[in-house]
C-alpha cells in the first residue's frame, strides 16, 4: 500500500479540518461521536458495528471541524472492507486524532496508537472503559501513560458521559498547539510512503508491551456476577440452553406482546379514533367520488396507512427492537456466534455471520451493510442471499403473524420452521454456488455488559424514529398505488392476466395480485393486503410462504446493487420471485391432493 493509490477523489477525504476518532473495534468510538456531535451513531457490544464512517460537525474555539467516526481497526494493515476505510482516512491526513483506548485491554490498543503516531498527526488519547478495567482489578497510571505516549491522556467512561468535558477541553488545547506549530503534512510524513519512518509490527508490539507493563497494575479480583454469567454463556453448557431460552423468550415477546399491544391499544386507537376522525373530516368537505375513495375508501390513504403502519406493524417492530437492542448491547450476539459456529460451518459459513443474519430479522439493509465486516466476498453474498430468501424483516414478520394468528396457533411455529428449513437450504446452495472461500471464525468476544439505560433508550428511540421515517414514504407510495389501482379498475384487469399464477397455481383469490405488486415496494406489503381478503387457512399459509420468500423491497435491491453490483442484485431478486411462486404453488397443489 502507498500514498498514491489512495482514492483522494472522495470529498470527505479532501477536507482539511478533519478530526478522526480512531481505535480498535468495540472500544466506544461511536459513543464519543454521539456525545461530541449530538448525532446518534449506532454502537453495540460487538466488533464491526461501524463498517462505514460517520461525519458530524463540532465547533471548538469558534472554529468548525468535521469529526469522523472511523470504523474500528486493529491495525492499519486492513483485513476487511471496513478496516480499509480506516486506513484510507489515515492516509488522507487530519488536523487531529482522538485515539480511543480500551483500558481493560491496553496492550493491543497501544499497538494501534503507536502505529497512528507514525503519521505525525497530533493525538489525544482517551482511556475508555475504565469501569470494566477496575472490575477486572486493573489500575492504570494515566500520567505515566501520557509521558510514554507523548500526548494528553484522559480517563473516560463514555457511556456514562464521564470525562467528556475534559476531553473537549484537551482537544481545544491540542488543536491550538497544532495550529501554532503548523505541522507540515505531506506524503513524506506518511509511513506507507516512507518505509524508513515505519517501525516494524514486531517493534510496535514490543513497545506496546513495555508501555503496558509500566502503566498498568493487575490485582487478583473476584469475578463479578456479570463476568461469571458472561463466561457461563460461552460454555456449551449452560451456554447453549441459555441462548435457546433467550431466543425463545424474544420470539414469544414479539409474537404475544405484539398481538397484545395491537389488540389492547393500537387497534382501538386506529379504528375507534384516528380513522373515524379523518373519515368525518373528509366526508364533510369532499363530494363522493374517486378522490374521496382514494383518501378514505377501502384502500384509502388515511385508512390503510394507519391500519397497516400503526396497528399492524408498529407493535411488532417496537418489541423486536426492545429485545434486539438489549441483546446487542449486552454482548449476547458474539456469544451465540461462538456457540453455533460448528453448526454454521456445516452449512458452509462461519458463526460470525449469525450476527448479521439476526440483524436481518430487523431490517435487511443494515444487515447487508453490516456484513462488510465479514472477511470474504463469498461470505457476504451467502449472508445477503440467506437474508433475502429466508429471513423476513420485522415489519413483514408482524404482518405474517397478524395474518396467520387469525387461523390456528400452530401456523406460526410451522412458518418459523419453514423459514428455518429455507435458511438452511439457501445457505447450503449459496455456499456451493458462490465461488471463493469462507474464512474460519476469528472473533474477539467482548465482556458481557449491562446496557446503560440512557444509551439504550436513546438507541431504541433512534431506531423507532428511523423505522417510521424510512417506512413512511415507501408505504404511502404503496398505499397510493393500491388506491389508484383499486379505484381505476386496473386491479381487476391485472387480476385477470395474473389468474393462472395467482388463482390456478397459488390457489389465492384473484385480488391477491395486489400483494405481489405492492411487495416490490415494501416487504410487508406482500402480506398486508391479504388481511383484507377472506382467505382459508391454506390460502393464508401459502400467502405467508410466498411473502416470506418474495422479492426483497426496493431499498434492499438498491443496497444489493451498491454492495455487489447489479448482476448479484438481479440474480437474488429474480431468484426470490421464482422460488416464492414455485414453492407457494407447490404447497398449494400438494395440500389439495390431501384436502
Amino acid at each position: 500500500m502507498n500514498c498514491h493509490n489512495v482514492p483522494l477523489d472522495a470529498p470527505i477525504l479532501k477536507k482539511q479540518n478533519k478530526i478522526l476518532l480512531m481505535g480498535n473495534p468495540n472500544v466506544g468510538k461511536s459513543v464519543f461521536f454521539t456525545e461530541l456531535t449530538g448525532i446518534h451513531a449506532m454502537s453495540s457490544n460487538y466488533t464491526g458495528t461501524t463498517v462505514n464512517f460517520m461525519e458530524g460537525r463540532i465547533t471548538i474555539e469558534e472554529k468548525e471541524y468535521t469529526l469522523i467516526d472511523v470504523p474500528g481497526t486493529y491495525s492499519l494493515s486492513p483485513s476487511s472492507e471496513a478496516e480499509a476505510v480506516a486506513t484510507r482516512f489515515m492516509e488522507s491526513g487530519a488536523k487531529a486524532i482522538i485515539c480511543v483506548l480500551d483500558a481493560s485491554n491496553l496492550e493491543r490498543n497501544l499497538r494501534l496508537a503507536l502505529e497512528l503516531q507514525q503519521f505525525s498527526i497530533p493525538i489525544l488519547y482517551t482511556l475508555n472503559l475504565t469501569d470494566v478495567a477496575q472490575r477486572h482489578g486493573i489500575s492504570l497510571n494515566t500520567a505515566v501513560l501520557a509521558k510514554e505516549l507523548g500526548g494528553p491522556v484522559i480517563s473516560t467512561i463514555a457511556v456514562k458521559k464521564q470525562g467528556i468535558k475534559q476531553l473537549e477541553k484537551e482537544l481545544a488545547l491540542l488543536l491550538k498547539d497544532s495550529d501554532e506549530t503548523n505541522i507540515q503534512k505531506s506524503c513524506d510524513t506518511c509511513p506507507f510512503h516512507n518505509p524508513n519512518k515505519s517501525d516494524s509490527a514486531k517493534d510496535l508490539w514490543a513497545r506496546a508491551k513495555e508501555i503496558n507493563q509500566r502503566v498498568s497494575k493487575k490485582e487478583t479480583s473476584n469475578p463479578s456476577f456479570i463476568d461469571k454469567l458472561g463466561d457461563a454463556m460461552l460454555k456449551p453448557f449452560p451456554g447453549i440452553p441459555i441462548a435457546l431460552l433467550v431466543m425463545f423468550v424474544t420470539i414469544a415477546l414479539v409474537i404475544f406482546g405484539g398481538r397484545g399491544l395491537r389488540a389492547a391499544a393500537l387497534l382501538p386507537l386506529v379504528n375507534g379514533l384516528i380513522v373515524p376522525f379523518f373519515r368525518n373530516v373528509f366526508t364533510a368537505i369532499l363530494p363522493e367520488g374517486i378522490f374521496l375513495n382514494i383518501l378514505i375508501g377501502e384502500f384509502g390513504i388515511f385508512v390503510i396507512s394507519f391500519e397497516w403502519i400503526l396497528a399492524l406493524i408498529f407493535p411488532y417492530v417496537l418489541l423486536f427492537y426492545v429485545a434486539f437492542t438489549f441483546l446487542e448491547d449486552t454482548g449476547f450476539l458474539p456469544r451465540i456466534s461462538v456457540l453455533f459456529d460448528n453448526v454454521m460451518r456445516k452449512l458452509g459459513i462461519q458463526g460470525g455471520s449469525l450476527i448479521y443474519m439476526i440483524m436481518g430479522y430487523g431490517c435487511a439493509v443494515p444487515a447487508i451493510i453490516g456484513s462488510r465486516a465479514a472477511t470474504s466476498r463469498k461470505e457476504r453474498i451467502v449472508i445477503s442471499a440467506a437474508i433475502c430468501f429466508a429471513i423476513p424483516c420485522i415489519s413483514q414478520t408482524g404482518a405474517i403473524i397478524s395474518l396467520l394468528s387469525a387461523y390456528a396457533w400452530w401456523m406460526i411455529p410451522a412458518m418459523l420452521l419453514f423459514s428455518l428449513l429455507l435458511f438452511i437450504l439457501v445457505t447450503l446452495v449459496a455456499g456451493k454456488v458462490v465461488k471463493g472461500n469462507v474464512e474460519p471464525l476469528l472473533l474477539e468476544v467482548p465482556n458481557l455488559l449491562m446496557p446503560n439505560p440512557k444509551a439504550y433508550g436513546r438507541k431504541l428511540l433512534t431506531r423507532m424514529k428511523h423505522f417510521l421515517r424510512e417506512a413512511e414514504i415507501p408505504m404511502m407510495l404503496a398505499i397510493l398505488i393500491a388506491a389508484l389501482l383499486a379505484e381505476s379498475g386496473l386491479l381487476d384487469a391485472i387480476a385477470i392476466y395474473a389468474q393462472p399464477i395467482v388463482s390456478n397455481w397459488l390457489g389465492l383469490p384473484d385480488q391477491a395480485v395486489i400483494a405481489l405488486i405492492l411487495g416490490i415496494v415494501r416487504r410487508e406489503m406482500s402480506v398486508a393486503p391479504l388481511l383484507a381478503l377472506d382467505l382459508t387457512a391454506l390460502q393464508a399459509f401459502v400467502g405467508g410462504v410466498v411473502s416470506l420468500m418474495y422479492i426483497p423491497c426496493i431499498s434492499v435491491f438498491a443496497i444489493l446493487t451498491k454492495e455487489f453490483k447489479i448482476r448479484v442484485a438481479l440474480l437474488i431478486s429474480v431468484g426470490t420471485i421464482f422460488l416464492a411462486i414455485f414453492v407457494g404453488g407447490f404447497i398449494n397443489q400438494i395440500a389439495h391432493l390431501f384436502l
Partner: protein
Amino acid sequence: MSATTNLYAAQKNDILEITSVPKIDLLENIGLRSGTRLFIQNRYACGGPLLLRVEEAYNVALGKDIAIQIGVEHAGVS
C-alpha cells in the same frame, strides 16, 4: 518449555505460548503472534472453534482450521 504442538491439539487450561502463526493479517492484528501467552478456555464439539483467553486480558474465538496451523508450547497451568 515442552515440545511444540498445534494449538487445537493442546489441553484446555494449560498456559501456552505461541511459537508460530500462519500469515494471516487479522491474527497478528488481533494479538495472536509469536510470544503471545494464552490458554484454551472452552472447546466446542464437532470441529467447533476454541475460545482463548489471550494475555489474561481478552477472549478470542478461533476456528479449528486456523488453530491447527498455530504452533504453541506449554508454559504452565492456569
